[in-house]
């Protein structure tokens, strides 16, 4: 029983991490038709900026309010990077989806390599606030506290994104743009400004995932984002590529499947199991759970 509880909470924590990455991906993909490979780079930037701030930035540190400052710095760095990428390399290739993908592929290779050139390939110890360092007993299982933090943050981001989508003017434009970009443009609304906004939001979420991923794994490495990104892609396809709620459901499913399969079978099979689920979803529900993908052509 205690094992199952531990696996469920850990799986939910991993799912929370996936959701933070995949929500930005699915927003960017839904609105812009861009498969953003650079998302993993934003994650690395967020993780390393948080780490750097906790060591070097005055007022920031591994504990309490200082950690919040560090994470805020990391998220700001990720947001800034995403905004610059959108303005600098994505926007000039407006409407050329394939070239946009290629550019993000280039960035996804170059940025982590640059991080590695500066801070080395070895894993760096990530600062861990005392508040989330221990374990909490729950139904007989000792659960690491940071898992609850991950789940809480992901839930907050989910609520925030849903409110952004339903209550704000930009959310309305983004949702309409996902449905029919040509029509929104024809109505005289500048969709490009919401592109930049969505990219910035995605970068912020990815950077947050980088900081929380540092907590989850205890260490950060330059190419951590790249491996997490692939599961985020799977989440996006299973979740149906454009729906935030579908994305959340798929994240939780993928996180749980991975944890349970890794524990009860050979380690590594959990990752394969996720891919098998992906194949099954594709075979039975063409275009993912929300079924929007099928008609899209790159």
């Amino acid at each position: 029983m205690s094992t199952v509880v531990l696996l469920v909470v850990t799986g939910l924590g991993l799912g929370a991490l996936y959701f933070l990455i995949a929500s930005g991906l699915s927003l960017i993909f839904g609105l812009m038709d861009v498969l953003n490979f650079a998302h993993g780079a934003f994650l690395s930037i967020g993780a390393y900026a948080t780490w750097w701030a906790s060591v070097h930035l005055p007022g920031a540190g591994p504990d309490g309010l200082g950690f919040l400052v560090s994470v805020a710095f990391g998220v700001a760095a990720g947001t800034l990077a995403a905004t610059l990428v959108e303005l600098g390399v994505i926007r000039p290739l407006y409407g050329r989806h394939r070239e946009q993908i290629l550019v993000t592929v280039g960035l996804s290779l170059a940025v982590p390599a640059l991080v590695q050139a500066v801070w080395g390939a070895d894993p760096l110890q990530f600062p861990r606030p005392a508040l989330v360092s221990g374990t909490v007993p729950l139904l007989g299982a000792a659960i690491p506290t940071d898992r609850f933090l991950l789940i809480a943050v992901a839930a907050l981001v989910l609520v925030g994104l849903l409110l952004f989508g339903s209550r704000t003017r930009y959310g309305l434009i983004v949702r309409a743009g996902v449905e029919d970009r040509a029509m929104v443009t024809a109505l005289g609304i500048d969709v490009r400004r919401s592109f930049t906004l969505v990219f910035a939001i995605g970068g912020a979420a990815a950077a947050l995932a980088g900081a929380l991923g540092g907590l989850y794994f205890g260490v950060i490495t330059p190419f951590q984002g790249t491996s997490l990104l692939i599961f985020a892609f799977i989440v996006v396809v299973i979740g149906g590529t454009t729906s935030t709620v579908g994305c959340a459901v798929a994240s939780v499913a993928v996180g749980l499947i991975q944890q349970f399969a890794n524990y009860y079978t050979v380690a590594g099979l959990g990752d394969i199991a996720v891919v098998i689920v992906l194949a099954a979803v594709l075979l039975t529900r063409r275009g993912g759970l929300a079924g929007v993908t099928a008609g899209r052509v790159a």
Partner: protein
Amino acid sequence: MNVDTDTNRAPGTSATAAATPVADVRRPRRVPGWAAPAVVAVLLLTLPFSTLPLPGVLEGTLNSPATLHLLATCLVFGGLATSYDLLYGRVGLLSFGHALYFAAGAYLAALLMGTLELPLLWSALIAVVSGTALSLVLGAVSLRVSGIALAMVTLAFAQAGSILVIRDPGRLTGGEEGLSLNPDTVPGAFIGVVNTVNLYWLAVAYAAVAVGVVWWLGATPVGRVWRGIRANEQRVSVLGVNPYPYKLAAFTVAGGLASLGGVVYLLVAGGVTSAITTAEFTLTLLVMVSLGGAGTRWGPLLGAVVYTYVDHRLLQLAASDVFDTLPSAVRAPLSQPLFILGTLFVLLVFFFPGGLTALPGRVRAALRDRGRATTAP
């Protein structure tokens, strides 16, 4: 990117360009269509007999084992990039999982020769047939989605293969160490430094097969449907042709050629490592194809040869003391091959759309524009 990359015309169709001189002011092409392949073939086949030293470009003479080995690697990747371009450049399918079929060929052949001690020919045959079957099955599933979702799904499958190879649950693949070639089952002609020239012939043969198959299929009715799918898939299906089997055929042929390339790579490199299973490796293929020019006759081969050569030279430079004189802010990024690869990619998209094979045309167009500007002010 698809603009004006369709150089895969039958030799006779260039006559239409001559018939409409208004549209095209260039001279009609007098060189027959088989001339370029013949020249390249003769060049490649005579290379090992040349003792030409190329200081600065190559380390030894042209027929030294080190150079032949480098050239063989270039050609294997050239054939592989050509097979990838069958999907990417000719049908417009963006796959991020091509490494899987290459790795399947290499690993299966290595396993069959290593653990079962089957002779090379049988191992190669079984590996290629299995690799082709794998691409047929996975292609059938992946092609249920199209566009960007296809990229994600193929990436996911390839990643599953990569995890399987690296985690090595069955103690077969050697994890990150990889497998080495079992010399007992390989004919003596392919073993040892003296026989590097035979491996070179093998690589030439593979590149010729890959290029030949892709060109030949491009000229058949199937190839015409592929071009239609690349231009506008919806229009093809409206015309009453179901694109799915054609896309699956391209996926299977490309996968089969890739697994054949894997077997050749196993022989040339003398083993396999998990590096060829990763998503980065497929992205490298994408760089090669984009560098040379996607969807063109020679682009993928040329791009792969240039890329592999430059990559090799950069590694040599990084190992030597050339970079030591540079300030560390410059040296550190330059010592990261992936940084150079990624930056090259971004620059390619912005400054060389169409790749190397489109360069002569772009230069010619620029000269013509300048000529017009001077003659007609």
